[in-house]
């Protein structure tokens, strides 16, 4: 792998829960994102993917572990240039834009505060940013309420790009959008990546979207990464039963037969994480050892770049997910 731009090492985040108990949102997570890479972070609600994003962006303090950017450790307090280097785009473009500010005000405020362009060039830069995200320059005079969901998401992306970041963390950026609009935003991410060489951490519960966009994928369950690898290894030959279940449950257009659920029950509360492998109560493959020994994220035998946290990671999938 090329030099890592972002290194997350043994990251743990706990929050205080009721009755003095601890909620472990993120539990010993380690991964890297290389320069120019798109890494997809996948998992269901409450698995800790957003918390990881917030740690990297400096919005949440880790309880343990480190986040490094270009080899330097970053905490909550960051130099302005480090802050600018990592920007977030959120799921809901409705609530992440100030409803009383025109788009020009939003962008020029950022550009002025960060002294990114000379006053005389403000307007030109605003127009450039609009063009970058595929919006006409007269959109600058609009208020957020005058735009559709897809357009607002473009504006949110333009705002993130205004401070010239190296990394964009996109947290479910297309989940609130209709399918016909989703595609245009995915295209925009592809385009920005090839034009600006952006590094992207793309968080989503939608496997189809992640498979389409990412170079590498990490799958999370209850605060841990349970599988990680290059996109095709993970999707073609998933080694963790949870990844297999996710793939089997992904909506498919021509799936006429009902998908039989392979996974029992629901994820347990992150306050009460099961012993051993936290997936064992729902796992179709679980045995005695899974209830006591926590499997570590380890390399699968057949690949140098594919890792899974399962005692049976070297068994090939019994019900391999078939393509169409």
């Amino acid at each position, binding site marked *: 792998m090329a030099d890592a731009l972002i290194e997350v090492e043994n990251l743990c985040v706990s929050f205080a829960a009721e009755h003095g108990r601890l909620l472990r949102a993120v539990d010993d997570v380690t991964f890297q994102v290389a320069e120019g890479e798109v890494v997809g972070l996948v998992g269901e609600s409450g698995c800790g993917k957003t918390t990881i994003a917030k740690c990297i962006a400096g919005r949440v303090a880790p309880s343990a572990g480190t986040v490094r950017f270009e080899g330097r450790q970053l905490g909550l307090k960051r130099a302005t240039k480090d802050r600018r280097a990592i920007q977030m785009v959120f799921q809901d473009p409705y609530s992440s834009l100030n409803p009383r500010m025109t788009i020009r005000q939003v962008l020029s405020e950022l550009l002025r505060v960060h002294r990114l362009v000379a006053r005389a060039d403000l307007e030109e830069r605003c127009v450039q940013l609009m063009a970058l995200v595929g919006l006409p320059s007269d959109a600058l005079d609009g208020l957020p309420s005058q735009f559709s*969901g*897809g357009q607002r998401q473009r504006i949110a992306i333009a705002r993130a790009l205004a401070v010239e970041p190296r990394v964009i963390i996109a947290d479910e950026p297309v989940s609130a959008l209709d*399918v016909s609009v989703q595609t245009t935003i995915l295209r925009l991410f592809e385009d920005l990546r090839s034009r600006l060489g952006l590094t992207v951490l793309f968080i989503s519960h939608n496997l189809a979207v992640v498979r*389409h966009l990412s170079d590498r994928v990490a799958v999370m369950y209850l605060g841990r990464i349970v599988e990680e690898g290059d996109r095709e290894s993970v999707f073609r030959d998933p080694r963790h039963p949870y990844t297999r279940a996710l793939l089997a449950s992904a909506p498919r257009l021509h799936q006429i037969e009902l998908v039989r659920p392979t996974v029992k029950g629901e994820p347990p509360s992150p306050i009460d994480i099961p012993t051993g492998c936290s997936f064992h109560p729902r796992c179709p493959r679980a045995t005695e050892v899974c209830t006591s020994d926590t499997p570590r994220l380890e390399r699968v035998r057949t690949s140098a770049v594919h890792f899974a946290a399962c005692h049976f990671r070297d068994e090939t999938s019994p019900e391999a997910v078939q393509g169409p």
Partner: protein
Amino acid sequence: MTPILEVEGLVVEMTRHGVAFRAVDDASFSLERGGALAIVGESGCGKSLTLRAIMGLLPSGGRVASGRVVVDGVTLDTAAGGRGRGHSQRQRMSIVFQDALSALNPVATVGNQIAEAPRHVLGFGRSASRQRALELLRLVGIPDPERRYRAYPHELSGGTRQRVMIAIALSSDPAILLCDEPTTALDVTIQTQILALLAELRAERGLSLVLVTHDLGVVSQVAERLAVMYTGRLVETGPTGAVLATPRHPYTAGLLAAAPNVDAPEYEPLAIPGSLPDPLRLPSGCTFHPRCRFATPECATTDVRLEPVGPDHEAACLHSDELATTRAAGNRG
């Protein structure tokens, strides 16, 4: 056999800033006894309002301007909240909403909420309705029903809450279950479980289903009939397999092409150009024409209606044949 549900020429009017517009415009469809129909479309297309109009639960400002809803041969009084003719027919239908947390009563135990209809609608005694609620909790796959009976909605996970909603919907012993995005708020592994539950209820209890969703991937698993809506109008209806394999309306084809494919990362999803029109300023003629690559000048002036395009398959498009040949050619290449 007569269909269990028939909707004919349904027009729902809503108002925005004091201006009335047709949020559902002349929708007609029917549902066979024990059948399942999915209504698909993007946000604001009128799919949820169609369900609410059938149920008599239109939001304030909305009204059924014309059209008929016929349940089991009896025409319902379609005025919102109508208690007139067809009241007992309406009781043969139940609705399940997307967001179970806001649809459930936060200060009543789930058991009491499920027991309410048996006690007050079906006239069961206190212990009989409790028994019935416990049975329903078991039926929808909630483990340890005795304990869950006493739980409040906030104590339950999203998946369990949706199961409780379904139990409540079933408690009045309906023949038709209307589901408004029942799995949209749920994680995929839970979604699979809920879809399996709906299929099971259909098979075992002969329930008829109307499922409203934006997710074509959910549709194909559950419903054998599909209706596609755009700007309040039905643009295509037919057997699910046929519509998905050979869509005859460019909007349906566009929706299908827009979704990334989890099994084929090399597939480049194609966006539908333009955006959804403002319901107060709908384009003339076929409302899809400004976004359609098959559009000709006639599309802006002709009022297109659903026309047969195949066995049991209808589309509202002047160019549905052209679409079929283009797609066939595309598939060969």
